[in-house]
């Protein structure tokens, strides 16, 4: 009977979570200011809770964060930084309320289910590694803005193109593994709103770009010059859903492994530090 949980508007409460009201009050949900650090997971170390938390995690979180927690479209929770706090209260808040401005919405779990997930995340974390990522961020920054020509399509803190996704906080949103995959095999991946599409109009014009939206009767797309085209399908001869993203693959010919490490190192700073913005060059807008 299940239906896609990402689409769901499940309503879940749990009277069994005796701590719930006090927890919510402490977290400032609905009332007071959060007092992080004052709340502890009542299920910490409970093997059954941990196992149930694993099921919850895999089913509700695994699509974005990876079944193994190593990150997919969402951050690496096993090895990466927990940017929004790592206390039990922080985790409870992030899971139950989501991260504003990101793709992560409220998980809509019952309170005890949230605690189960947190118990599992901590066990996952304890088996993670704390290895320093290779690469030089400063060198990667140069590659990004110069050799890589990434700015033609991507925007960081208000600077750059708009055809591709804004990367201002990509370091927080993607694992290193995911970023590497998306660079080396860029043409195989595109997030919603950036699907490559070509339309053939009845007047003979051909427009290539990324799809912002589409249904049975209309399509809204941005062409490679960032012009929006709002079209009725009755005016089109054909809509071609391209197999490959407009972003080229960055193979070893374009970026050596060392350069890739540098670029990844730079991208991983974006959204994770206050200094990730680069001053706008004069006349570069």
């Amino acid at each position: 009977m299940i239906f896609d949980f990402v689409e769901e508007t499940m309503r879940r409460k749990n009277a069994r979570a005796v701590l719930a009201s006090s927890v919510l009050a402490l977290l400032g949900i609905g009332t007071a200011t959060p007092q992080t650090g004052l709340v502890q997971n009542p299920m910490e170390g409970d093997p059954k809770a941990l196992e149930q938390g694993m099921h919850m995690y895999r089913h509700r979180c695994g699509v974005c964060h990876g079944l193994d927690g190593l990150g997919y479209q969402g951050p690496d929770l096993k090895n990466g930084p927990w940017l929004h706090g790592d206390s039990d209260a922080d985790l409870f808040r992030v899971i139950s309320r989501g991260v504003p401005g990101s793709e992560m919405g409220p998980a809509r779990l019952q309170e005890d289910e949230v605690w189960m997930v947190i118990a599992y995340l901590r066990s996952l974390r304890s088996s993670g590694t704390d290895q320093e990522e290779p690469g030089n961020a400063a060198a990667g920054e140069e590659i990004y803005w110069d050799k890589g020509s990434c700015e033609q399509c991507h925007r960081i803190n208000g600077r750059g193109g708009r055809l591709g996704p804004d990367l201002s906080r990509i370091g927080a949103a993607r694992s290193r593994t995911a970023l590497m995959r998306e660079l080396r095999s860029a043409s195989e991946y595109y997030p919603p709103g950036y699907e490559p599409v070509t339309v053939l109009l009845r007047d003979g014009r051909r427009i290539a770009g990324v799809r912002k939206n589409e249904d049975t009767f209309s399509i809204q797309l941005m062409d490679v010059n960032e012009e929006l085209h709002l079209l009725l399908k009755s005016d089109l001869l054909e809509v071609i859903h391209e197999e490959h993203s407009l972003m080229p693959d960055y193979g070893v010919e374009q970026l050596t492994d060392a350069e890739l490490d540098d670029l990844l190192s730079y991208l991983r700073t974006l959204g994770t530090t206050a200094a990730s913005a680069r001053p706008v060059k004069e006349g570069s807008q």
Partner: protein
Amino acid sequence: MSRRASSITVGGAVCIIATFGVIASAQEVSREDLLDGLTNPQRWLSYSGDYTGQRNSPLKEITTENVRRLAPRWTFQTGVLGKFETTPIVIDGILFVTGQDNHAWALDARTGRAIWHYRKPLPDLLNVCCGSVNRGFAIYRDRLYMATLDARLVALDAKTGSLIWDVDIADPERGYSATAAPLVVKDMVVVGVAGAEYGTRGFLDAYDTGTGMRRWRFWTVPEPGKPGGDTWAGDAWERGGGSTWLTGTYDPELNLIYWGTGNPGPDLLGEVRPGDNLYTDSVVALDADSGELRWYYQFTPHDTHDWDSNQVPVLADIEGESGTRKLLMLANRNGFFYTLDRTNGELLVGKPFVHTTWATEIGPDGRPILLPNNTPSAEGTFTCPDVEGATNWMSPSFNPSTGWLYVTAREACATFYAWPQEFIEGQYYFGGTYRPSGPRAYSALRAIDPLTAEVKWEFKYFTASMGGTLSTDGGLVFGGDMDGNVMAFDARTGENLWHFQTGASIWAAPITYMLDGTQYVMIPSGTTLFAFALPKE
């Protein structure tokens, strides 16, 4: 009543009201009214409109010629977020509408203005796998019947919305909930449950419409020693699933209730429940008076893909080479279309209506001939259809003139994962997960010949959709899609004749009714109930 009307004599007022207003003296709904179904086009008295589940209205004011002029007449905003899956009841100018989170309303069917609003408070504990939805009321005499999210059955006074009685169906703390519109049969209200994702054991109940006392219960998962009990191992039957979360149909001549049953539990992990797992993923034919099983047909033995078979079983009598056959049609979530003899459950037709990778045909013994490598695994196993299935709760419709069933089909695949999971009462018990895989998913409205399973035509929807269909004697089929389009098609050719963007995903099926000589077409979308009609001359 208008100010002018109230200022004149009583007799005059009556005259004015008759001209400019409506005396909405809702007539009681009798057993005969329910048997007559959609014969009175001012009414839509049950989830599917009548006992056959055909969702075919005799109305033909709106035709293939004029449907292009169809336009919104009014809207009603519920203000309640979530999936709006209801089918309204219509009687004598009043609409009875249920919404998410145990809300319900009575509306003026001419203007959309609310007459009353009912809400049953939700308990703190609530396990619902798939949204806080409700799919509609049932009506009998002057009472409305609603199954609530917290697995209760309430009877309301249709005039006021006030509560008459309120009985337990099941314990929500164990994972039971209720979302289906009940079905009134004789003086009983038949209602099912949801909760197979929480290790519950499914059943179908019948309650006395007057007192709320339970008349019978049919367990969809038999206990050991009962017929079918040997299709379960150990104590797996105790949490075997087999929910009954969508409204069935009824044949008064055979006195049989037909109801679809849901997935076995845990959904994706089959190794803990070896066997066919009867009567999950089946249609069961029950004696209406006793609830006893007369026959069953299991579509997906030992399901490991969450392919509930709760789809509305559509009943029709069709002329064939050997005379009139009493048929039951069901386009199944597992990707196959089936036609059965509804007197005995004999399989007559069983063929895929979407791309399937788990089976490509049904064998002579009525069982699917399985293809290898479709069992969910820790590494992930690719299978079509996906979890949401080739179709789902979205109602099909059947037009007796064309003889075709109109089905919202989904072409979608997924990678299925499974892993061991300990059962804890009241906790989610799915045994794995899934993620969309393969080619981009989409939907198509398909016209299917029930005698051959041949797809006579299709109209593709861009996005895989969960909106149902409505057929009319105006030669039309109406449908809705996930992108918010409500659409009308030529029932014979599939040509799209009209569409309107409602602005939110459509999760329900349209209905139609006549009021003041105007045919309305109605569909819920987002938080809005839309009423369409042809422009006034």
